[in-house]
Every structure is written in C-alpha cells, then in structure tokens.
C-alpha cells in the first residue's frame, strides 16, 4: 500500500519509494541513506515534539511528522 512515512504505525516496516521536499533537506536525507528502494521501519512517534523516529540501515533518524509527509513509502502490512 502506497502511503507516506508519516502515516506508518510504530513498528511497521516499509520500502521507501520517493523523497520530496526542499532541496537542502532532501539532499541531507538522501545522503543519510533515504534513497528510494531502502527498507525502513517506524520506531516510534513522540507526542510533544510531533516527531517520529525511523530506523534504516541500522541508524536512527528523527523527522518532524509534518515534514515526513514528503516521503512516499510502500508499507508492509
């Protein structure tokens, strides 16, 4: 199912399909390994900061939920 990174449930895995957003930020994400085809998992959401934590290639990266909508993923059930 195609959705955005922001819509994943904690613990759910997905394959990254496309990365959008402003160029500097997008380049930073790409260089941290957010390239299409990469497996990733949503670790958790944190309420206060409206952030989520993603695991990919054994690294943990946090993004704002609002900004994670720019990442399109194919969710695994």
């Amino acid at each position, binding site marked *: 199912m195609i959705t955005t990174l922001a819509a994943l449930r904690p613990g759910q895995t997905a394959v990254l399909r496309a*990365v959008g*957003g*402003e*160029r*500097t*930020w*997008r*380049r*930073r*994400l*790409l*260089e*941290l*390994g957010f*390239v*299409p*085809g*990469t497996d990733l998992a949503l*670790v*958790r959401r*944190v*309420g*206060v*900061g*409206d*952030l989520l*934590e993603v695991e990919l*290639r*054994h*690294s*943990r*990266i*946090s*993004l*704002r939920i609002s*900004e994670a909508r720019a990442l399109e993923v194919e969710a695994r059930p």
Partner: protein
Amino acid sequence: MSRPVVAIAGNPNCGKTTLFNGLTGANAKVGNYPGVTVERREGGCSLPDGRDVVVLDIPGTYSLSARSHEEQIAITAVAGLNPIREPDAVVVVVDSTQLARNLYLVRQVLELRLRTVVALNMADVVRKHGMRVDAAQLSRMLGGLPVVPIAAVSGEGLAELKQAVARVLREDLPAALPELDGAELRADVDAVVPHVPEAWSRGDNARRAALARWALLSIDPQDELWDVPPALRQAVLERQRLAAAAGRDLDQTLVAARYRWIDDGVHAVVSRVPSTLRRLTDAVDRVLIHPAVGFLIFLLLMTVVFESLFTWSQPLIDGVDGAVSAVAAGVRASLPASFLRDLLADGIIAGLGAVLVFLPQILLLFLFLSVMEDSGYMARAAFLMDRVMKAIGLTGRAFVPMISGFACAIPAIMATRTMERRRDRLLTMMVVPIMTCSARLPVYTLVIGALFPAPHEPGGTWLGFFSVQALIMVGMYLFSTVLALLAAAVLGRTLFRGATVPLVLELPPYRMPAPRSVLRMMWERSRLFVTEAGPTILVCSIGLWLLLSFPRGAAPTASGPGAPVAGAAADAAAARAENLRQSYGGRLGHLIEPAIAPLGFDWKIGVGLIGAFAAREVFVSTMGVVYGVGEGDQVATPLRERLQHETWPDGRRVYTPLVGLSLLVFFALAAQCMSTLAVVRRETASWRWPIFLFTYMTALAWLASLAVFQGGRMLGFT
C-alpha cells in the same frame, strides 16, 4: 621541512573527537578555520617510525556536500583547497555498528584520491554484542585500503592505527576506485569537469570528476558557498537546468549510485547485527523521550543545571573574589601610595578578577554540556524541545543556552557552539543577554528594596498576602523571558530570516561519556575564554577604572594602611564621592544627563550606569561611592536609605517608585556588560555582532524606560 598533516574525518557521534584526543594527548591547539566560526583543532602525534605529524580534526559531518560556508569547511580541509593545506593522509573514523551510513563519507573521501586509512571504531561494542565486522573484507571493498579496528574510548587499536598511517604516508596512492556513474550521469560530470580549477584537481582525473560531483550536489542558486569559480557555478547551474528539464533527478542519482555500491559491498562485511545492540538505548529512550515523563526529566535536569550555575557556583565565585581582593590588598599594603600602585591594585588586578570570576560558571556549564553531548542525551533534549523552540524560530538546541542565560550570559553564549547553523547561533547569542542574569539581582534588590514598600509597610502586600517586592522581582523574570522570546521572534523574522530548516536529527545510541573528554572540554573552554575574551575584558575594566578615578581631585586618597577613625571614614567617603564627581566618568554622567532625564534619571544615576558597564552589579558600589556611603559589602543598607532621601534641587524626590520601575526596565534590557560583548566578539570572530547587540539592546532599554516613565507620568504617577 614541515610535518605531515593527518586529517581526521567522520560522521557526528562516531567517536572522532575521542580518537583525536587519544592521538594528540593533552596539547591541542584550538582556533577557528579562516573566515568562519567553525572550530579548528590540531595537535601533535608521533608515529611508530619516529615521524612527527600534525593531527587536524575535521568538523563531524555525514557528507562533504555543502551549501553554506560553514559546511564547506569539510571539503576544503579534507581536499586541501585554498587556503587550507592538503592533508598528507586522512583517517576516516567510522562507527562499526552503523557501517553503511558511515561508508558514504568514506566513499566521498576516496573519490578525492587521498592517502586514506579507515578506523573501524566501536570494536568493543561489536565484540560485546557478538556482532561480526570483517575488516579484511572491508579493506577489499575499498580497494585495498588499510582498515584498522579500534575502540577510541579505551585506546585499543591506536598503535596499529598509527602504524597504518605511517605506512600510507610512505606508500604511493592506491589505484582509483571504479567510478559509479551511469552513462547519463557521466555526461553531466563530463560537462562540469573542464570548469574544475586546476588548483583543486591537481591534474588528477579521478579527483577532478569527484570535485565535479561535489559541485553538482552542492551548488544551487541560493547557496552560500565561498570561492567557487563563476565558470564552474555557471556550468553546474546549466547542467542542473538541463537535467531538470529532461525530468532527471541529479541529486538522487548521484547519491543512490554511492548507496548501491555500499549496499552491495557491506553485506559481506557485516554478517550479523544482533537485536541486543539497541536494546539498552531503546529501553532508556522509552523513558527519556516519553512525551510526559521525558519532558519532566528534562525540566528536572535543567533545574539542576540552573541551580548549579546560580547557587552551587557561588562559593567558588566568592573564593575567586576573595583571592583577588586579598592580592589587591597585599599590593596596596606593600607598595607606597602612587598611581602605579592604584593602577595595579584597582585596575589590573581587579580587571583580572573580572575575567576569572566567570570561570566557575563556565566550568560547571561545560561539565553538564559535555556530559549531555557525549552521552547522546543532547540530541534527545533537542528532540523534546523542538516544538516549543520552533514556535519562536529557534532550534531545540537553543534551549540550554537560554536557560543558562538566567545565570550568566557568558557561559550561555559559549554554549551556543552546540548549534549547527550559524543563523541559529547568532540569533541565540543576540537574545540570551536579555535573560535575567544573576548580576542584575543586586541591582534589582537595591532598587526594589529602596523604592517599593516592604510587606510590613503600608501598601506592601497585594490582596493582603503577596509581597509587592517579591511580585516585582518575579515580574522582572517574566518580563525578561517574554522580551527575549519576543526579540527572538522578531529578529528571526527580520535580520536572521531564513526558513526554519526541516529537522533531520540522528538519535545516537547512549554511551558512557569518557571523563577525559569531559575534563578536556571544560579545560579548553575555560582556556579559550581567558585567552581570547579575557584581554578585552581586562582592557575595558582598566579603561573604566581610569574613567571613574581621573583626573584626581585635590582631596587626598582615602585608602591606605591603618584603620581610620569613624570621623575620618566619613571624610574619606566624602572625598571619594568628590573624586568621582570630578572624574571623567562623573563629567560623562553630566554629559549624558539630557539623554537619560526623560527616563527619570539624574546624572548620578548616569555615573552608576557607566560604572555598570563593567558588570551590572558594579552599579551598587558605584552608587555607594557617588553618595559617599562607603564601599564594599556594607553599602546596601545605608545606600537604600540615602536613595529614599535624595531630592532634586526643587525638593522633589529623585527616586520615586516610577523612577525605580524605569531603572529596573533599563537594567533588564540594556547590554551593560562588557564581558558579554567580549565573548560575542570571540564567538563570532567579528566586532559587528557585539556592536549590533549593544546598540539594539541599549536602544530597546532606552525606549522601554521612556515608555514606562513618560507613560506613568501621563497616568498621573510621579
């Protein structure tokens, strides 16, 4: 012959600084890279073959790509572009537990054709968790490069690492890695290659292509890169336009090619990543970044930091003050009365005291900061505070400096170093000095105590319960906090515009901070403060002393050995008051009276304001001298009474509650602290920002006091 330079590069949180410390021992030179405020550290190291090398620490980065001058330092220093000398070898430190991501930087460094050694850090963690990372296989993947497993924290593998560095320094460059570009990307790179300056590529084709790729990824119409040849910029922008028109995604293609190479190769290197690796960190994070519990713990921790800066540092500060007074008294007692004696005791020694008195708070704050940073907690704090700070246009990392500003702006401004973006650092530095620092308290206590009724006096309570004096004190804290946040919001939308950057934050695994690194950080910060902000503070305090002591009146100087009798003491105090009146500072007070009269201040307050520039609390002792009520710790009570009875020539009271309020507001907002200005100068490496800070805060203070005083009068208060 100059010593070979070995650059140490690596991702943030990979243990690079710990390795640097391990290689260089205790004698690093800390400065800035030319033209930016990015910290540059270098130190000496002896290799096993007897050769001495200079070890240069490259700022931690995930990639060499850059968009700002600050980010550009990494490529400039690694590749040795003008004006930085090319390193003779590069050690890339990688975190073995997150190898894939770290290899991205390794690949970029290798493309630049430099003698390279990979330090496979966290060997201890790998072993403990039964993970397998095959160094020999990684070396094959990287074209035969030396790969040395190390544990920077314990020093394991450092000897082997030094041997490997010595070896690559002797050997020729290995063959270039096969290029990864497909046919389309090759065409893009080829179009840019002719515009890469010869001084950058040094005639090496692989390096030229690498720099073309760097330019394609880094340059864009809004970048803030420095020293990029216009022809190269033109060629890149043209190529980016063509690619976009053809629907090709240059950035993604360039990065994805490297990650394809990484993913293909890393399988054979890392055989098993056990699930235990993150277990502890995950367990701790369930508490520490919990929306409620984590937030509470963070606030608790901040309270401890604040309490330590505010209260625990006090005995140390008193100790410094006591020692300085003792030395000054010793000088005064052992030398005959002369200008030189006074200069030494009241100017130079007092000035040195004004520098050293900040050390307790700097040491304490950096103790907390480096433990927070090294343990991985700082990233979580930024995470927790992101939403709150984003609302006023700052990053989560600005929170700790802002809170520290309640104790003292000096360490708080130094703490802005933990922020990545220059805009965020500058903006934070410009608003932190508004926070109610501890130096304002003696002034507030004096003014509130003198001009507002105590609880037992008529009108001293509000609703029969709250003390008016206490309410005003609390109000001053609220006022400064609101004003600082407002200033951040306004400056962030005007002078420091620039979109709030989308957040990408790494949450590194928790690690036990190495005491050596923590101590080293505390030592380095203190040393930098003393050597770089110290001279400015010293010169200013000597200047202020001269201003307030010269020219000397006819009255004899009061201080001297032998206890004066009571009558003589009163005479001496009167003489000192007369001296101050005659001094340049006293005249300056008269001179500025027209400017401060609309705020309700007379020239005597003007003299106090000038004295307060040395440090705000000096206002109290300067006013003590102005009114001839003596000096030192005993001044507060008689001064309070004196203020209550001071009148204008026409008999009106000078110090009414309205004047008091105006004075409080002025002290809350004015940049009356030369040490703050000196430290901003050191941190921004320019006079521009301290001048701006002084101007805008003082203007704001003047306007706010004017509004309070004139507005109050219009409302019928006196």
